[in-house]
């Protein structure tokens, strides 16, 4: 744990140093919104952002990914595994909520008897340098879900914007090592530390009040069969699934084969529980045929099933689902309604 100070004008220098030995992913502006993309020069970075529209999970878990390729010949079938060890990478400027989502994904992809080597291979050799939220959105509710705009979970280094300088904090050994290689850092003073704590207080005070989510688990279970309760939300859902596609903790995927005459590949691609096809049986039977059941599945999965299997809520409170929904479905309304019943 090291605490340093970096004058803002030194940031390009830091990025330059990182770019020398790492592939660097950072927020960039594209089509009027922010995404995490690979940068080649420090000036491509766009740090003046609230949060990226698309969560950075796609760096480790891309929308479509080849699992393996195969070639057919008279001698039989030859399978080539499509895992390439990733080069050392840094994700710079990731928000604490998204960093936390990686701790959830890490858990999920390695839980149980089977591990997911594709995610794990991409994920390793990656350092996460976070940028604390000094300006959380009104739709952010990380504090309600055991998170914080200055949260450190999942990060190796945290940057906090103190106006004209960054408070830089390494959070583990890897972070310590990296900090030692970076130029222009000076030790943080007691005053800097004080300023940072004060800033955190200010930011927390500015946030939308916490939504009480204690016992949410049991409440959800009690209400599981209450059609009226779920209908008030699912009624306006148009089933577009933007909420799940842009969720940093959603992990479901589909697997398809694609083939040309003699070779082919098996591909996995993001899928979503919000489509009826997701659960449709070959016989025509569908265990979740209605919007109500599908919306309930999304909520239950994150707030009831996740805690049961992985001991953590499967949501980081980034609020993307609220912002992106074309009909303004607001998951916080579900919590509120839960508290009222």
């Amino acid at each position, binding site marked *: 744990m090291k605490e340093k100070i970096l004058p803002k004008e030194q940031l390009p220098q830091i990025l330059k140093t990182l770019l020398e030995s790492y592939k660097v992913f950072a927020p960039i502006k594209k089509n*009027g919104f922010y995404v995490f993309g690979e940068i080649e020069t420090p000036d491509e970075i766009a740090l003046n952002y609230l949060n990226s*529209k698309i969560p950075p999970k796609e760096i480790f878990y891309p929308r479509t990914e080849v699992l393996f390729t195969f070639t057919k010949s008279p001698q039989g079938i030859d399978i080539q595994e499509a895992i390439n060890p990733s080069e050392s990478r840094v994700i710079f400027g990731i928000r604490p909520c998204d960093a936390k989502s990686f701790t959830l994904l890490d858990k999920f992809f390695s839980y149980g008897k089977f591990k997911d080597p594709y995610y794990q291979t991409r994920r390793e050799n990656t350092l996460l340098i976070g940028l604390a939220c000094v300006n959380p959105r*009104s739709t952010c509710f990380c504090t309600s879900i055991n998170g914080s705009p200055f949260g450190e979970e999942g990060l190796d280094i945290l940057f906090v914007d103190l106006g004209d300088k960054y408070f830089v904090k390494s959070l583990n050994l890897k972070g310590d090592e990296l900090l030692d290689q970076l130029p222009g850092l000076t030790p943080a003073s007691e005053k800097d530390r004080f300023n940072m704590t004060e800033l955190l207080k200010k930011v927390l005070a500015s946030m939308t009040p916490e939504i009480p989510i204690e016992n949410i688990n049991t409440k959800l279970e009690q209400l599981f069969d209450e059609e009226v309760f779920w209908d008030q939300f699912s009624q306006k859902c148009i089933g577009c699934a933007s909420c799940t596609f842009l969720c940093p903790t959603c992990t479901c995927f589909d697997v*398809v084969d694609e083939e040309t005459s003699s070779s082919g590949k098996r591909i996995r691609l993001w899928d979503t529980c919000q489509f009826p096809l997701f659960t449709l049986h070959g016989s025509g039977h569908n265990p979740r045929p209605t*919007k109500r059941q599908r919306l309930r599945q999304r909520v239950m999965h994150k707030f009831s099933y996740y805690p049961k299997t992985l001991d953590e809520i499967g949501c980081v409170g980034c609020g993307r689902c609220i912002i992106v929904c074309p009909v*303004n479905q607001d998951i916080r309304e579900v919590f509120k309604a839960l508290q009222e019943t």
Partner: protein
Amino acid sequence: MEKLEKIMQDTAKHFLQEQKVDLIIGYKQGTIPLRTTPCFVTKPEDISQLVWNVCCDHDLTNFLLQPEYKDKKVGIIVKGCDARALVVCMAEGQIERKMVTIIGMPCPGMIDRKRIESELEPKEILVAEITEDQIHLKGKDFEQTLQKDDYIQASCKSCRYNNPPVCDVLIGGQPIELSFNDDLDEKLAELEAKSPDERWTYFTTLLSDCIRCYACRNACPLCYCKECFVDQTQPQWVGKTTNISDIMFYHMIRAFHVAGRCVECGACTRACPMNIDLRLITRKLQNIVKDRYGFEAGLDPNVPPPMGTHTMEDPQEFITEPE
């Protein structure tokens, strides 16, 4: 607009009280600024939830096709585009005219919150007040006033039927005339004048962001197929990946499937989480159908859709006729 809102509420309330309808599908205040959310009112006393403002951009026709409203008498708040979508559904036999009470709203154009939000980021809007021609925005440490006309949604600027062509009651009784400067037709002409290769580059670049989430399809009031072609597996015609060839395949066929039906409501463009603007395609569809068959979708429920009919005299200049 407040005046219209009041009349709309009264009218809707009247319909509910008279039991002319079982429920009203309208808009209510959303949970974040500049947003409304669909609302379903069944009791006359709840009618005050209904709002009407320039944030009512969602196309409510979408809901009418859902099974839960099949046997219900529904009152629905529609703008010009929504009414046209409704008419297409009627012409295609999806909705029975007598089951729907159409409450038409003359539409002044909806505002483009996505653009406002994007331009303001990292500032965030916390309070928005909209007057006749201005939008007052307030947030943490800032206050800003925008001219409403500068932030009208692109699809509203290029709108040609802002007043419902078919409705049971037109709220306020007065159609609104729009006079926005719109360059969609010029842009289209410009693109059409380019070479196929340039157009290919244009569309592959535009659509390369597509994540195949099908939000465009789900938001579309006219994409009501029980099983979409992208979900069919026997055989599976369209690959599901984000390979550009698959993406183009999807968008070509989707365009084909809404040709002669699309009413340019802009729901697809609005719903796209990747901000892909599909308006050039939808405008082109209008032109193709109009040029070839003199047809405009969504104006008359009694005229059969162009892809469901044909004549001996249809133009066929594209047929190969060797000398």
